[in-house]
């Protein structure tokens, strides 16, 4: 698993996220600092998405660490708000976690309906539910506050 063993990664992840084991999950990448959760949710693994000037930020989107600004950033690549996490054929979805209006994390739904997340600078995981990363612990992502979706643009169309 890159800079640390998978066993070490799992030990850390289960310490950071107290609900992780309430569903199935698996580590799917090595530790990598080149991209973050916001970029990964947008489907990018070579860029760090963060309000300018600390990272890439879509032109015209307010440089704020708010859920609304991140939603606008995803809106710039075709996502629109939707009501639920339920998998919809032909659409990919993202879920935004927030804390009092501040952006905390974003997860992306795979065609299978499972979610995938980049955990800070650490590994990517696939996780069965969004709730597995929720909580009020130091490293937990608080709670999902917004869903967005766009039509699949690749051969992975559901």
């Amino acid at each position, binding site marked *: 698993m890159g800079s640390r063993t998978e066993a070490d990664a799992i030990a850390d992840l289960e310490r950071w996220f107290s609900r992780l084991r309430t569903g199935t999950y698996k580590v799917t990448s090595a530790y990598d600092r080149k991209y973050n959760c916001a970029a990964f949710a947008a489907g990018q693994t070579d860029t*760090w*998405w963060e309000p300018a000037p*600390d990272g890439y930020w879509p032109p015209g989107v307010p440089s704020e660490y708010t859920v609304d600004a991140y939603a606008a950033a995803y809106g710039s690549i075709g996502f629109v708000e939707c009501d639920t996490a339920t998998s919809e054929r032909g659409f990919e979805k993202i879920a935004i976690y927030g804390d009092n209006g501040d952006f905390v994390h974003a997860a992306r739904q795979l065609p299978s309906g499972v979610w995938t997340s980049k955990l800070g600078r650490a590994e990517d995981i696939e996780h069965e539910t969004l709730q597995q990363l929720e909580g009020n612990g130091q490293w937990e992502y608080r709670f999902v506050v917004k869903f967005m979706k766009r039509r699949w643009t690749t051969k992975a169309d559901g």
Partner: protein
Amino acid sequence: MGRPVLPLILDRLAVNADPWFWALRAITGVDPVDPRDAGKIGRMAEAWLAWGREQKLTP
């Protein structure tokens, strides 16, 4: 803290490209990163390391 920590931050940046850019900007008051490279951690790190060499903060 302040300018004395710059060599330490730049050393760390050289080793693992941890995104310390906000701290570097806050301490130095400059930003040598080309805006077109925003989000490209490797290029952002290279820009800061080049700046550090120009300032003779790193070898």
